[in-house]
């Protein structure tokens, strides 16, 4: 969220000033606040399924942010993979194991302050890195198309082919790992019986 704001701020005379924001920028900040709020609710709510549902709001808000940054393809990947697959996976897992309705006391962790510290530190690091890397960059939303599937595909298959192929190995490793983890040692004997 602050990347764009910082960019608008630091770019100085290069682009339009941050004191007269465009509609897209206003919407960006507002949605950013929604994302931040729902993200806080994800970690503070005492109802485990509600946490997963607030996560949907957070991820959906992020998708809207991507859309505002004209990263069309990534936005819909966000919806398809994170909301359509990962959250469904989470909910599925919760319902399979145990998802009581109402507050559960065990959701209050004793280590919440250290956790907050770690999360804060990680966020600060990321923020610093991002601001440092892009502080002079100004994303001109007037020239869109940078985030379309075609542009993504071109850069992926012209420049980033090797990481792409390595990714398939990573996915394969994840797949095999998942299969092995889900099959306990006595499983084969069970099957034969």
């Amino acid at each position, binding site marked *: 969220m602050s990347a764009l704001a910082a960019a608008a701020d630091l770019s100085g005379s290069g682009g339009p000033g941050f004191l007269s924001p465009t509609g897209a920028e206003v919407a960006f900040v507002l949605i950013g606040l929604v994302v931040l709020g729902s993200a806080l609710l994800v970690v503070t709510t005492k*109802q485990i*399924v*509600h946490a997963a*549902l607030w996560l*949907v709001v957070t991820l959906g808000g992020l998708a809207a942010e991507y859309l505002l940054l004209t990263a*069309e*393809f990534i936005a*819909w*990947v966000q*919806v*398809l993979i994170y*909301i*359509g*697959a990962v*959250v*469904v*996976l989470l*909910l*599925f897992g919760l*319902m*399979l194991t145990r*998802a009581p*309705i*109402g507050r559960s006391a065990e959701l209050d962790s004793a280590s919440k302050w250290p956790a907050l510290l770690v999360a804060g530190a990680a966020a600060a690091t990321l923020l610093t890195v991002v601001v440092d890397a892009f502080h002079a960059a100004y994303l001109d939303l007037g020239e869109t198309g940078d985030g*379309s*599937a*075609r542009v993504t595909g071109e850069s992926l298959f012209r420049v980033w082919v090797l990481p792409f192929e390595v990714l398939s190995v990573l996915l394969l490793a994840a797949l095999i790992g998942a299969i092995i983890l889900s099959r306990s040692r006595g499983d084969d004997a069970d099957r034969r019986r």
Partner: protein
Amino acid sequence: MTLFEVLVRLVLVLLCFLVLPLVIGQTEHKVMGHMQARVGPIYAGGFHGWAQLVADGVKFAQKEDVVPAGADRRVFRLAPAVALIPYMVVLIAIPLGPGDLVGRSIDAGVFFVLAVMGVGVLGSLMAGWASANKFSLLGALRTAAQLMAYELPMLLAAASVAMAAGTLSLTGILGEWQWWWLPWQAVGAVVFFTAGLAELQRPPFDMPVADSEIIFGAYTEYTGLRFALFLLAEYAGILVLCALTTVLFLGGWHGPWSGDVGWLWTLLKTGLLAFVVIWLRVSYPRLREDQLQKLAWTGLIPLALGQLVLTGIVRVATA
């Protein structure tokens, strides 16, 4: 686009969303009736009971809104809206005819449609969990398992068409479409349509709402208008699936005199597919859970991968 034009498009999308699912629903009543040697509804509205679903809607609107005591009230109430609205949003990207006869041409068309449609299933999951009912929870679990098995073949089959056209835009795909894509993409079409049926939980893939086992799955505790919205979501889902299959695999508005009556071709093909959906429901028994998973993972996914290979080779060879 002027403000007036925007308004017209919004109203048209809303109208399509409210009227066409009702038409499909009424057709289902009548077709299903006659296929089972019955006559279906005959009283409401006089002529062949055409107003049956309108009467149903009026009835639903007057019914008490019961939220079970053990339920999570907020999630329970929100679920129907989450199930319904994605299908309406999707309608805007589906082209009805050539040129500008589309709610709005979206660059990432196919991808947008598939992503947004996937959100709808959250509604069923929320409903199933929030009802505090064993049947509902089982229904939600089955819904999730079914989605996970069938979303993938659907994605792969849609990717095959995107490969053939070299674009993700639905209008772009129709612009590239040639008649010989019909045999070329036939396997993909079957995979897409079957997987779509499974995502809509229509028979023979209606394990998540299997009434003889778990009452009505995730919707067991719902009454009145909320229940009606879930039903509307199901029929809107049929509309979206059939329209999408038409656009991706059957050439959408392409056909004789498509310049003048292109929209009629789209509606005709969509209607035909909707008839097939109803026909399948009447003809086939429900698949068991293991058969469902087996069909998806060892049947549809390999078929879809094969279609991808075929599309890729043909496309590069003819380029």
